[in-house]
């Protein structure tokens, strides 16, 4: 970035959109409804049959979009690929983090204390999770019709168990349970046919998101073998994150003298006002028109605000995507740490103004898609959200989503004297998650045909 030009200024080969799952490449529709299903393959032949049936409902990225933007994404865990009989040599060629699974990465990811895997919702983090299916649509009837097809794909197969289901829907406010507009900052991907949300950000090389194409380093991302399995696939990470909305609201309430101050503190923690208006453009008060304007709500950087007087250097959105804030440091290339993010809300809204916990589970299903789970998802989680070394505040973490194992602080730069919030409790608790691989359509065919086409794949005990 700071070099001005990528090391290899080659043009990416055209993306094979007819082979890539739509969900591997795009964000979610808005508004949206969604369902996440986890399946366990008890019988290998039924597992392959399942893949064959799912092929009928999965749509490629190049498929002419329906008005309701319905998409089905199918992904497999390491255990799932093993259960299907993928040869060990091939399993060994996947990214190490994927092979280990999310529960094994918990200490690295900061999933400790209440967020530790021993407290996760069953079956998340166990080897029973084999297949993850997400169905997203802007239309409920369409969602149910497609979800029914996905259900039929497995319900007739005795060797396939539906072990977990999570429904998601956009709150009436159109915002997250914390009250903020989200899903704003998707990067563009070369060849995807969709522009970047941020007009100042060049689209990413396709290999940052899809395997088989050059990435930002000019090289091909490490790709699982055989090529038919890896090419046009992507890694998908999903996490169920419970949000403690009452704790968040009462924390702000206790530290504010007015509703305006409460809104300002919330905005300083997030980096945007509730409407989505960025502090970098609207530092003093919310601007709903700006927040709702996709041409303007991403048209900003942080380079003009190095000390964070407009948007704190430790604010959530600035940590998750520092944009141009670190360009002068010579040690980090922000473009290596971008990703497709797809957050969807689950659970009802905590009614406006309530600051007592109602005991109802609510939160976010976070979904990552990218070619480099370690330097994208894990890097952002461990270096930017869970840590403060990069902003010169090693003891601070993300005020909203940081693990805050010990009471944490958050610094809000302001004149004349900075404000420092003390004793931040965790506002987000990990309920579980998994590393998955979303194969191409051709790879799904290959998986469905394992053991049929020839006898070569050695049988593995699932």
């Amino acid at each position, binding site marked *: 970035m*700071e*070099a*001005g*030009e990528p*090391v*290899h200024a080659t043009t990416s080969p055209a993306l094979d959109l007819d082979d890539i799952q739509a969900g591997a490449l795009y964000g979610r529709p808005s508004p949206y409804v969604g369902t996440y299903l986890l399946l366990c393959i008890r019988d290998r032949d039924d597992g392959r049959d399942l893949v064959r049936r799912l092929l009928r409902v999965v749509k490629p990225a190049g498929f002419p979009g329906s008005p309701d933007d319905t998409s089905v994404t199918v992904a497999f865990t390491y255990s799932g690929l093993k259960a299907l009989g993928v040869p060990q040599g091939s399993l060994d*060629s996947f990214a*190490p983090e994927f092979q280990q699974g999310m529960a094994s990465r918990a200490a690295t990811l900061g999933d400790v204390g209440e967020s530790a895997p021993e407290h996760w919702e069953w079956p998340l983090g166990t080897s029973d999770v084999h297949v993850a299916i997400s169905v997203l649509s802007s239309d409920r009837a369409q969602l149910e019709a497609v979800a029914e097809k996905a259900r039929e794909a497995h319900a007739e197969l005795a060797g396939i168990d539906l072990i977990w289901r999570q429904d998601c829907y956009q709150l009436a406010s159109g915002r997250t349970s914390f009250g903020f507009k989200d899903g704003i900052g998707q990067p563009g991907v070369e060849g995807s046919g969709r522009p970047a949300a941020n007009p100042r950000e060049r689209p990413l090389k396709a290999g940052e998101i899809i395997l088989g194409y050059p990435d*930002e*380093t*000019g*090289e*091909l991302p*490490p*790709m699982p073998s055989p090529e038919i399995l890896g090419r046009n696939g992507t890694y998908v990470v999903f996490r169920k994150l419970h949000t403690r909305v009452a704790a968040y609201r009462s924390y702000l309430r206790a530290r504010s003298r007015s509703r305006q101050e409460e809104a300002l503190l919330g905005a300083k923690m997030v980096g945007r006002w509730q409407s989505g208006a960025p502090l970098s453009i609207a530092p003093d008060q919310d601007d709903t028109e700006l927040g709702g304007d996709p041409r303007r709500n991403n048209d900003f950087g942080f380079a003009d605000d190095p000390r964070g007087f407009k948007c704190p250097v430790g604010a959530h959105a600035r940590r998750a995507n520092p944009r141009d804030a670190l360009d*002068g*440091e*010579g*040690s*980090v*290339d922000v473009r*290596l740490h971008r990703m497709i993010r797809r957050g969807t809300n689950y659970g009802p809204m905590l009614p406006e103004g309530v600051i007592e916990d109602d005991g109802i589970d609510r939160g976010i299903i976070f979904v990552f898609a990218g070619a480099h789970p370690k*330097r994208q998802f894990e*890097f952002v989680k*461990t*270096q930017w959200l869970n*840590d403060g*070394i*990069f*902003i*010169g*505040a*090693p003891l601070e973490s993300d005020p909203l989503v940081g693990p805050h194992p010990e009471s944490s602080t958050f610094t809000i730069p302001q004149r004349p004297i900075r404000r420092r919030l003390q004793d931040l409790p965790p506002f987000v608790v990990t309920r579980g998650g998994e590393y998955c691989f979303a194969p191409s359509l051709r790879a799904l065919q290959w998986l469905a045909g394992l053991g049929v086409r020839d006898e070569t794949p050695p049988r593995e005990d699932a």
Partner: protein
Amino acid sequence: MARSDVGEPQPGLRVGPTSEFSLFFRVKPGSEQSLRTALTDLQNTPGYRPGDYGMAIQTIHEARFVMFDDDTRLAFVTSFDGPWDAYMEDFFTSGPTLALFDVIFRHVEGYGGLPDLSALRAFVLDAEHVAAAYARNYPGTVKEIRKALRVSRAFQEVLDHPQAAELLQHPAMRPLWDEAGD
């Protein structure tokens, strides 16, 4: 191509937020003098001259190049804020730094030159050795140290004000008062 044939980087030892990082190379026979010249040129580059404090990588505390064993070997030894392994890819794509290092590494064995990044990666990882012992005498990142120095300079300016003693009488100033005597 795929980098799975290249080993995972061994992250250096850490003290607080800072990691050590050490690379050891073999100097190409006959290149000893040109390497020494390149290092002298680096030393004279703005930012790298004594007192400049402006290296291209802003998260490095200090760095040294040492020629040893009769100039047949070269060591690069540094301390860096954050874990090296997380930043490895960034380092390999950080243009200005690579350009500076390129003129040095070309004098050592095994360096293929830019822009073959997978070869560069293998070259660096092959040269990396984790310290057997590592200690630091102050905590804090480069950013914190620089901030602390700015604050300290500002405090000295305050102390030079004729009414400093009077101003520091307020009970809230007690921690500064305690630091004001020397």
